[in-house]
Every structure is written in structure tokens, then in C-alpha cells.
């Protein structure tokens, strides 16, 4: 079995999981929720196997490298990270109502990577600039960070919806009842942002050390670097405003959403709209 077939199967596994999560949440169908959890974990397992298989295949082609080298591979790994972070959050907080969003996002990313004609999915040899062990540390930490920010953003949207609909006297429509409480959502947003911030910091630092060993410049204000710094500053703003000034609730939710827009721009926008060191990531 080839890795691309395996990853196509993963794509549809995520679609199934997202649908089951949706059914479990909207119709309070317990069996569906349980099925969703199993499907999502199975998808993650297959996904992991697919990434490893692709890694092995690249060695069989004679120019082995970790599968984090082009846009297709980064989308696949990004989807993997989102599902992993979500499932860990779910496992820790035992709330199964939220799965439809992250699994939906993972499905869309995988589908875009697999089926869009503009995304090259062939395994390509590494250009000299990417031939470094820092590649693995840099990509893994950045994407785990991005995934945590993605989950925080989704939670932020849910927080805002639930907060605006649910006055204390009126618990809100049925679907909102099954979401975690406002306080839990707030805490979950914060937890994910903290994790993302730590991982983004590691990602920026590994990238910087790498750039210094490849080009002799640990910081060159390249658009991607700068946008990752902008993202870092937004989340630093968020953490300080919470830890020192005690901001909670709505403001945190909005900052989580704004922060994730910066992440998206760092990932997509810089590749497609601006040029620079990371232009091979197109």
C-alpha cells in the first residue's frame, strides 16, 4: 500500500469522524459520539502510519528525508497536528461535543492537499537549503503550535456564540447546552494558547538557529520570520493581559481568533502573497 492511498483513506476517515461528532452533538446520539471518538483515533493512527510510510518511501526513491519539505507535506502534517492536539484536549477534559470543528478542518486540509491540482503531492528531493536536522525540530514544533492555536480559535468562536446566546436565565438552544461551560471554554482557550506559545517559541528559536547555521544570519526580517514574530507578539499580548491585568472571557476569545488569523497568514498568506526565504514552501 502506498502512502498516498493511505492518506486518502485518512481523509475520508476524518470526514466520517466529523459527521459522527456532528450527529452526536446535534442529535445527542450517544452511539454516534462514541463511534466518532473511535474513528478519530483510528484516523490519527492511520495518518501517523501514512506519514511514516511516506518517509520510508522517500528513502526507497534514493533521496530520503523527513516528509516536511513541501506544501503538500506541510498540509498533511498540519492536519495531523490539529487532530492530535484536539484528541489530547478531548481526552483530558472529557467533553465530546466539540469534535466536529477540528475534524472538519483536518478533513478539509487533507482533501485540499490530496485533490487540489495546484498542490504537488509527489515526493521531491530536498533542495540544499533544507538539508538539515533542524528541519524536523523546526517543522514539528511550529505545526504543533499552530494546531494548538487552531483549537484555541475554534474554542474562541464557540465561546462567543455561547456567551451571546446564553443569558443566565436562558440556557440557550439545545446544541449549546452540551458545550462545556463558559468557564471551562475560557480555561481551555487559555491552555491551548499557552501550549501553542511555548511551541511557537521553540519553533522560532529552532528556525533561527537553523538560519544561522545555513546562512549565518539568525534573524533577517524575512516576511515569514516577521509574521511568526507578529503572531508571537499577539499571543504574548494575550498572555500578559491575562496574567497581569486579569483579562478573561470575550477579550481572550477575540485575541485567540485574531492570533489564529496571524497564524494563517504566516502559513498561507506569506507563501502566496509575499516572497522570501520560505518561498520553496509554495
Amino acid at each position, binding site marked *: 500500500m502506498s502512502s498516498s492511498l493511505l492518506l486518502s483513506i485518512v481523509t475520508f476517515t476524518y470526514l466520517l469522524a466529523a459527521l459522527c461528532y456532528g450527529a452526536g452533538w446535534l442529535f445527542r446520539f450517544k452511539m454516534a459520539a462514541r463511534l466518532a471518538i473511535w474513528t478519530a483515533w483510528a484516523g490519527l493512527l492511520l495518518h501517523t502510519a501514512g506519514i511514516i510510510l511516506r518517509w520510508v518511501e522517500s528513502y526507497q526513491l534514493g533521496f530520503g528525508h523527513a516528509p516536511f519539505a513541501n506544501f503538500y507535506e506541510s498540509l498533511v502534517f498540519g492536519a495531523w497536528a490539529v487532530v492530535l492536539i484536539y484528541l489530547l484536549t478531548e481526552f483530558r477534559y472529557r467533553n465530546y461535543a466539540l469534535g466536529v470543528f477540528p475534524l472538519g478542518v483536518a478533513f478539509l486540509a487533507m482533501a485540499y492537499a490530496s485533490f487540489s491540482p495546484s498542490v504537488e503531492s509527489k515526493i521531491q528531493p530536498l533542495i540544499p537549503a533544507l538539508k538539515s536536522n533542524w528541519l524536523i525540530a523546526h517543522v514539528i514544533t511550529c505545526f504543533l503550535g499552530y494546531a494548538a492555536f487552531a483549537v484555541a480559535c475554534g474554542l474562541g468562536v464557540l465561546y462567543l456564540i455561547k456567551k451571546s446566546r446564553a443569558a443566565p436565565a436562558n440556557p440557550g438552544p439545545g446544541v449549546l447546552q452540551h458545550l462545556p461551560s463558559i468557564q471551562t471554554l475560557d480555561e481551555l482557550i487559555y491552555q491551548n494558547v499557552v501550549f501553542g506559545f*511555548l511551541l511557537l517559541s521553540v519553533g522560532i528559536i529552532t528556525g533561527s538557529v537553523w538560519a544561522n547555521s545555513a546562512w*549565518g544570519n539568525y534573524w533577517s526580517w524575512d*516576511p515569514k520570520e*516577521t509574521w511568526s514574530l507578529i503572531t508571537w507578539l499577539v499571543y504574548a499580548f494575550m498572555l500578559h493581559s491575562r496574567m497581569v491585568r486579569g483579562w478573561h472571557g470575550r477579550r481572550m476569545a477575540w485575541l485567540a481568533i485574531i492570533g489564529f488569523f496571524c497564524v494563517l497568514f504566516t502559513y498561507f498568506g506569506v507563501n502566496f502573497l509575499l516572497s522570501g526565504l520560505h518561498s520553496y514552501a509554495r
Partner: protein
Amino acid sequence: MMIHFCKSAVIMTQNRTVVDRIYGFFASMRLSLFLFGALAITSIFGTLIPQEITSEQRLRQFGPKLNALIELLDLGDMYHSWWFRLLLILLSANLIVCSMRRLPKTLKALRAGRKMMTPSRIEKMHLHGRVELPTSPQESKTLISNLLSSRFTKCVWQQQEGQYFAVAEKGRWGRLGVYFVHLSVLLVFAGALVGSLFGFRGFMTIPEKTSESHVHLRREGQVIPLDFEVRCDKFTVAFYDNGSPKEFRSDVSILVDGRVVKQAAIRVNDPFTFRGINFYQSTYGSQPTNIVLKLENVSNGKSQQLEVPFRQPITIPGSKDRLVIMDYADNIGNFGPAFYIGMARENQEPDSGWIVAKQPGFHGNRLDGLRINVLKYANSYYTGLEVKKDPGVWLIYLGFVLMLLSLIFALYQSHRRVWLALTPGQKGTAVHIAGNTNKHALAFEKDFQQLVHDIENMKPDSQRT
């Protein structure tokens, strides 16, 4: 006398308020948040406006009006502009003053947190509980202290008139981590400053088989001489089957006083260091060498051959005519390789044009009444090396390591404390418990309720001993 005293007091308070205000301004969280926002928003402009282009290119791209604005605000090189640097200096000052002002408070709070609490104070805490135990206060104390020592790192008891008080805590570093994060940011800034003051950054282009001992600085346009020479022995570029580059490699020798002292291969991601100066593979190209031209005077048929260096003007021997090979192209208008030659003959207008190398009879191969033929030439590679000296890098890396370690403490280590008061109660002992944490309140609340529950259900097994 009285009036005089008042005056000086007024002046004193005024002075103090001014200093206080400045100090307060730099210590404020509002300034930090403003600077985070300002740096983020201004940086966006820097990514939208190309930073490394000339003012002519920018003029073409943005038009005169917008370009004037960009130049006024230094947006074409904004990360090195005075106002962006000012923002960074303000951020450093803010970090230092903020940390200096908060650190003593944190230390004081850590010490104060070790004070015991009476039952009435415990009940005023946000998170508190009350449990009745059948055992005597002394027995309860023994049981509870076993329980606490497994969950907290430090536990202190006090006894007073048959009552027992305790403070247990864990994760004090969680409160101090943030100061080390701030220190790490300052280390990175310090490293960047040291690098820009005592280091340089430039490039060298070295044709194969030649050596170079001068570094051209990018920003300042200066030239820095090195006390050794770098000779490019060989440059190789390897390709994959699909045509994308696989490896760029320069084999170099280091010469001191003309003698080879070291040899190395420089690849992308694999730099080379000599005497604190780092060399990185950056670009490459090919250029013609050993070019031999034949010049024939069309009017009198006299001809001569001479070897001309690439891009270096020469005077043609036996005349005052000057000639320079200005450029080379692999293929000009499908006529094959060609040289762009500039000519300035005595008493004639200067002329220039492309001379086709492989077609000697080409009618255009003449300048200023001279027919020019390229008799022979060879192509050789030159390597482009990034050359850098940065004595600040170790500070940067130290800052990076410190940042990661202290971020983990600052973000994940919560400082958890519980206070207990054991007083004689109706059944045996009344236990009052209060808890407090500086982060992860929800998780702590669960653990706190668990602790209260566990104390309530303790088995008095110590009675057996």
C-alpha cells in the same frame, strides 16, 4: 523660615512625582501591551513594503507620492529605522523596569504566604473547605501531614494552645520563571547589539583558482581586509534527476602569508569557520576567463591579438585606445555566447556592443572601426560566500536556552499553596482548609476538592502503631 520649608517640600514632591511618573510609565503593563501591539502592526508594513530594493525600484513600484512617504518614514528599511529601534529600546526599558518593580513584590508575597492562617481568615479565602474528623487534633495532625507531604514539596506546622496550623506549598519557581523569561529576551537583545557593534556581515565572490582577502559589506558598502586569503580551489554544483539542485559545494584553502594552512569544503547548511570568521555557501555563477581577442583595423588591415581580463578596463598596447569587456551572456538572440564590449578610441566617440563569440564573420562584430573576434575563452565558476563575524551569537544562544527553560516554568509550573487550621471540634477536630494558586485555577480546584475529600476519609491507621 516656615514658608521656605514649605517651598522646598513642594519642589521635593514635584521632583518626586516627575521621577515617579517616568518610572511608573516604564513600569506599566499598559506600555508593554502598547509596545507589543505597535511592534506587531509596524512589522506588518515591513513585510508589505519590500525591504531590500533600491529607491529607483521602489519609485517604479509605488509612484512618487507613496515613495516620498515611504522614504520620509524610513519604511524601505524600517527594521533599521530610528523609530523601530526606539520601540525596541522602549521595550527593553519596559522589561527592565517592570521586572525590577515586580520582583521584590513577588519575593515578599512568597515570604508572606508562609504565614499561618486562623480559621476565620481561611473562611474569607475564595477556595476553602471545612471537615470534621473523629480523631484528636494531634492525631489528625499526624495523619494530615502524611497526606500533605505526598502532594506538596514543602510543609510547615505550628502548634499553639492545642491548635495546629500548617502551610504547604509546591512550585515556587512558577512565580519566578517570568523574570528569567524577561532576562532571556534582554540577553537576545544584548547579543544582537554586540553583533552589530563588534561584528560584520558581508560577502566575497571568488572565481575558481583565485584567492580573495577582502569582504564587501552589504549595508555600508565598505570593504574589510582579512589577515588571511581564501582561495576557491573548486566549485561544484550537483543536480537531481529532475533538475533541481542537490548540492552546492566550494572547496577552499586558507592561505596565511601565501602558505596553505587549512582546507575545507563549504556547503549550504555546513559553514566553515577560521579565526572567528564564518563562511557560508550563498550563491554561485559562472564567468569567462582567459579571453583572447583579435582586433583588426578595418581601414588599414592591421591586426593584433591580446588577452583581456573580464570586467577590467585595459589600454590597447601601442595606442591610447581603451577597451573593457563589460558583460557576458550564454546566448544572445540565438547567435550563441557573446561578450558586451565597451571601446573608447582616441579622437572618436565611445562605442559599445555585443560581440558574438562563435561566429567570427558576423557583420556586427565591429566597434569604432575595429573588427573584433573572440579567438578563445573558457568558462569557470565563481563562488559567492557570505562572510560573517558575530561575537554576539553566544549571547543569543544563551538567551534562547534560558527562554525555553524559563518559559516552561513560567507557563506550566503553578505555585500551589494550602493553609490548614486544626482546632478542637464537636467530633474531635475541626479542619479548616484554604487553597490558592497562581495559574491553572480549574485544575487546582479539582485537586483541592480531592484533598478535602481525602482528609475527610482518612483512615486512622496510625493508631495501630
